[in-house]
């Protein structure tokens, strides 16, 4: 049984030897190089571009503005077609691509940028969601053109005449009455900052126009949605657009949906040669960001700790273009109450345009932001009521089988048990000395994506080797290996027999994308179905050779056995075709159900993530030291024991960044810290003395072998767990991230002042 083992990653060897080829390593014959001139101001009317000096610069082949691009549609976007490939008439954020240069070398293209003259007239800019919502704020997108790409986005509710491009609202129960009758009402506002994904490989795409078609190699998590977007940009049939994704150097949501592909493709079409567009790390930070979120949370509770009502007001800064912000806002709203039983709810989540860099998907997808608020407040409530924070949560946690929202999948895990394990792992009951504290948090998200389809194919070759065709992108999360394990186990062949092809929309069957913790479950089910299909065919063929029924046969380790008689899988295939050739192909598709819960579709599984932190606070400097962090993930069944735990650990460490020191800093719409010198990501120095992941495996997930999705849960809890630990260690509550030493010091000082005064 290969499931649940620590099988070696399929891509491990190539990655440790330097043989692995990422999209930025790719060389396409005859390719030219593109560089982008970016807007220096956040909001302006574009008056004119003079690229003549640049065009005469050595090696330059073309200098293009929006009107020079041979496209049928200039605008793209997964929710609204609001984002132009190059700025057209209006510049909406500092860093927005305005002019593109194509040259024979990167150096020549970069040198030409300095020779471009752009004239513009600055307009008043709104550089925060609050400014964008204020009376009289400029409306950045007066008319919105829905993309119509995704079913769950068909019900978007922008507010006309404002910068709100999506307003999610949900309510149930008599909220007003619940607040009136509550023993305690608590209201607070929390802030979560914008973050840069900083995957180590920046965005990169190579595009080539082939006769009537287009091929694009790109680091994307969504090859098929990108294909659709490109097809619409160029008015081509889907079959004429090919999107290929080799290994990519990290993504974390920053490579979701369409990014630089239309520009690379349009330039390739313009110059009739392949064009490579490789961004720098700083440029990637000017392409996409995490939503900065403000959460106002008001909670009504009984003195015994029973949650009665919650009012959540969530405001997301989606930047100049919506990207997938409307869905992030909807999900953030949906998840804001937390994993609890709360009879009365009133939720408003608004996705707001500003003149900042566009915000989109980022690991956790709104959950880290709303959980920062809700799990901080849970501890504040517990303190006011004199209750133990763990017991207070346990009392209100949804039980297995309980509904979160009417019509959606009931809770499919045992959260009370997960919470107990979290508490045990941090030794919750033991008192800590002054300046030291423990805190915990729990959260969940509806995992697997909404209305997403996956298809896979398993091709059994005549020598018994197997080609797995899947659109899942290998960006480090290990889907390539997990899916191969699922295929191997289901088919009955050794893992070493499986080769997984890179996603290629012309070859690998349709898949929605690699995000939302969906690949192990949704694509896994498709792979399992494909492998089962192939296995069934093999058994039918083998049965003929053995002169028996298929049910009497077993395949194990690549060998079909009928009692004592055996035959290799390869021999079955080649024997059937009568020569060393031919193949048996299995196909599997997973189409989600079509219930309608609040999100318009039933949740496949609940990704439950909990965390506990032990911290030491230096009262003089305000520095927080995380001594121990425990992350608990309910994964159903780990397909690969090691990679599953590794994903959760990595998620936790990544989220410790914004808890303590990581954030984008912008001044008047200008990103002050695009690169790594002034943007602090977690390093070895931040690794806690103890970092532990606990995987809960109750085999109660919908995926193959009882699996659920994993990969995002670890990001939910570090910030509130640490804040709760700090509060218990020092008595101060911090509501804005990151909890830098200065913030902590100021809060401690203010608290001392308040006590004295």
């Amino acid at each position: 049984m290969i499931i649940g083992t620590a099988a070696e990653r399929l891509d491990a060897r190539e990655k440790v030897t330097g043989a692995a080829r990422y999209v930025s390593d790719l060389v396409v014959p005859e390719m030219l190089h593109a560089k982008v001139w970016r807007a220096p101001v956040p909001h302006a009317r574009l008056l004119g571009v003079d690229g003549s000096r640049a065009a005469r610069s050595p090696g330059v082949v073309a200098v293009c503005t929006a009107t020079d691009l041979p496209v049928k549609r200039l605008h793209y976007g997964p929710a609204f077609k609001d984002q132009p490939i190059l700025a057209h008439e209006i510049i909406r954020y500092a860093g927005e691509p305005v002019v593109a240069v194509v040259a024979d070398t990167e150096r020549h293209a970069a040198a030409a940028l300095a020779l471009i003259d752009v004239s513009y007239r600055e307009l008043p800019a709104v550089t925060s969601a609050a400014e964008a919502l204020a009376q009289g704020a400029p409306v950045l997108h007066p008319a919105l053109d829905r993309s119509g790409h995704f079913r769950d986005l068909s019900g978007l509710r922008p507010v006309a005449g404002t910068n709100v491009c999506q307003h999610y609202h949900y309510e149930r129960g008599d909220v007003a009455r619940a607040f009136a009758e509550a023993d305690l009402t608590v209201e607070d506002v929390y802030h979560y900052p914008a973050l840069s994904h900083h995957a180590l490989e920046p965005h990169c795409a190579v595009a080539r126009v082939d006769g009537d078609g287009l091929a694009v190699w790109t680091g994307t998590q969504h090859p098929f949605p990108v294909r659709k977007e490109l097809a619409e940009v160029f008015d081509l049939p889907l079959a004429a657009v090919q999107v290929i994704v080799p290994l990519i150097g990290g993504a974390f949501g920053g490579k979701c949906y369409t990014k630089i592909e239309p520009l690379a493709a349009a330039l390739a079409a313009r110059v009739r040669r392949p064009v490579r567009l490789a961004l720098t790390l700083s440029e990637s930070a000017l392409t996409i960001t995490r939503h900065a979120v403000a959460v106002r949370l008001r909670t009504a509770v009984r003195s015994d700790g029973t949650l009665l009502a919650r009012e959540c007001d969530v405001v997301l800064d989606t930047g100049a273009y919506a990207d997938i912000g409307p869905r992030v806002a909807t999900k953030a709203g949906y998840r804001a109450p937390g994993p609890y039983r709360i009879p009365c709810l009133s939720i408003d989540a608004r996705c707001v345009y500003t003149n900042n860099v566009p915000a989109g998907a980022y690991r956790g997808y709104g959950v880290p932001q709303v959980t920062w608020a809700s799990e901080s407040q849970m501890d504040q409530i517990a303190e006011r009521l004199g209750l133990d924070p763990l017991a207070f949560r346990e009392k209100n946690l949804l039980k297995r089988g309980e509904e979160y929202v009417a019509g959606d999948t009931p809770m499919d895990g045992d959260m009370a048990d997960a919470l107990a394990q979290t508490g045990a792992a941090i030794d919750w009951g033991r008192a800590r000395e002054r300046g030291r504290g423990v805190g915990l948090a729990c959260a969940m998200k509806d995992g697997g994506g909404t209305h997403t389809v996956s298809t896979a194919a398993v091709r059994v070759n005549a020598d018994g080797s197997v080609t797995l065709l899947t659109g899942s992108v290998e960006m480090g999360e290990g889907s390539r290996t997990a899916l191969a394990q699922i295929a191997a186990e289901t088919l009955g062949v050794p893992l070493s027999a499986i080769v997984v092809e890179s996603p290629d929309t012309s070859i690998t069957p349709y898949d929605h994308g690699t995000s939302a913790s969906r690949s192990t479950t949704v694509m896994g089910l498709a792979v399992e179905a494909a492998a089962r299909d192939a296995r069934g065919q093999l058994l039918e063929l083998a049965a003929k050779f053995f002169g028996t029924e298929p049910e009497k046969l077993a395949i194990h380790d690549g060998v079909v056995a009928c009692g004592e008689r055996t035959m290799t899988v390869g021999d079955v295939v080649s024997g059937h075709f009568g020569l060393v050739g031919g193949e048996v192909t299995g196909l599997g598709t997973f189409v989600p159900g079509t219930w309608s819960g609040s999100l318009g579709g039933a949740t496949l599984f609940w990704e439950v993530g909990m965390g506990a932190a032990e911290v030491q606070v230096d009262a003089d400097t305000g520095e927080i030291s995380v001594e121990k962090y425990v992350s608990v993930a309910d994964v159903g069944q780990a397909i690969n024991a090691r990679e599953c735990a590794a994903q959760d650990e990595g998620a936790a460490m990544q989220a410790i960044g914004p808890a303590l020191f990581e954030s984008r800093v912008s001044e008047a719409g200008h990103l002050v810290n695009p690169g790594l010198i002034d943007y602090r990501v977690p390093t070895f120095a931040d690794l806690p003395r103890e970092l532990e992941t606990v995987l809960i495996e109750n085999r109660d997930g919908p995926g193959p072998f009882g699996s659920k999705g994993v990969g995002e849960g670890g990001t939910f809890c570090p910030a509130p767990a640490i804040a709760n630990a700090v509060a218990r260690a020092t008595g101060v509550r911090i509501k804005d991230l990151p909890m830098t030493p200065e913030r902590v010091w100021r809060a401690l000082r203010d608290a001392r002042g308040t006590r004295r005064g």
Partner: protein
Amino acid sequence: MLGEFDLVEPTSVAEASEVLARHGDAARIYAGGTELILAMKEGLIRYDYLVNVKTIPGLAGVRVNDDGTLRIGGATSHRALERDPLVRERFPVIARMESDVANVRVREVGTLGGNLCFAEPHADPGTLLMLFDATVRIERKGGARTIPLEQLFVGPFETCLEPDEVLTEIVVPPLPVHSGAAYLKFGFLERPSVGVGVAVTTDDGRVREARIAVGCVGPVPRRMREAEAALAGQTAAESRNTLAEAGRIAARASDAITDLHGSADYKEHLVGVLLRRAFEQALASSDGSGAP
């Protein structure tokens, strides 16, 4: 991307100085390049000529005179200082400070002379070395001068060097007998946000002399002489009581600015905290052999 330039590789300081004089603003000394090449790649500065001082023999290396003075060639790497047995034995606080500069790759290539001459405010070496009353030898064709290190720094990214001058040596006298020294820094960004160095010389239970240097916080690293005076002559116990006041004096004198690294008032507060902690460490290591 890095612009084109002509590389000049002199084999003597005089030759280097001559080239620098000839090309003025169009030329710059190139040692490790960890700051220079970075700024050139970003397009912040550009030069037509880079004068490689690594090809000048004798410009890198560490020596200790008979009187205990440490002599560091301008082109000596941070890593060489970090690992040099003599530095570690006689000036361990300097070796420790060097070991925490940036990361190991920057330390392997970056030089002390280059670091001091680039005069990035958020840096460590200048702050600590001026605690020792270090001097720097500055040579040009036809002459040389020696100045206190503190005078080298004029402003952010600005030194008192003439265009044709080369910083060839950093001379670090030993601290007096019965001295201890400590350097503490703070910050969570790539470059340090606050750096405080303290050296204490004791005499029969009294602080004969206290030296305090503060860097990273203001435009240049500086000795805090007013704060030093407040501590001089006190017993160890008395000095502890004066530390808070000394910290306040030093904080005010540090010219702290509010930037990405923090607010001015927080930095001033940290100056006080680090001063207190560094003082305790320096005092503790002043007993005994005297190696700081």
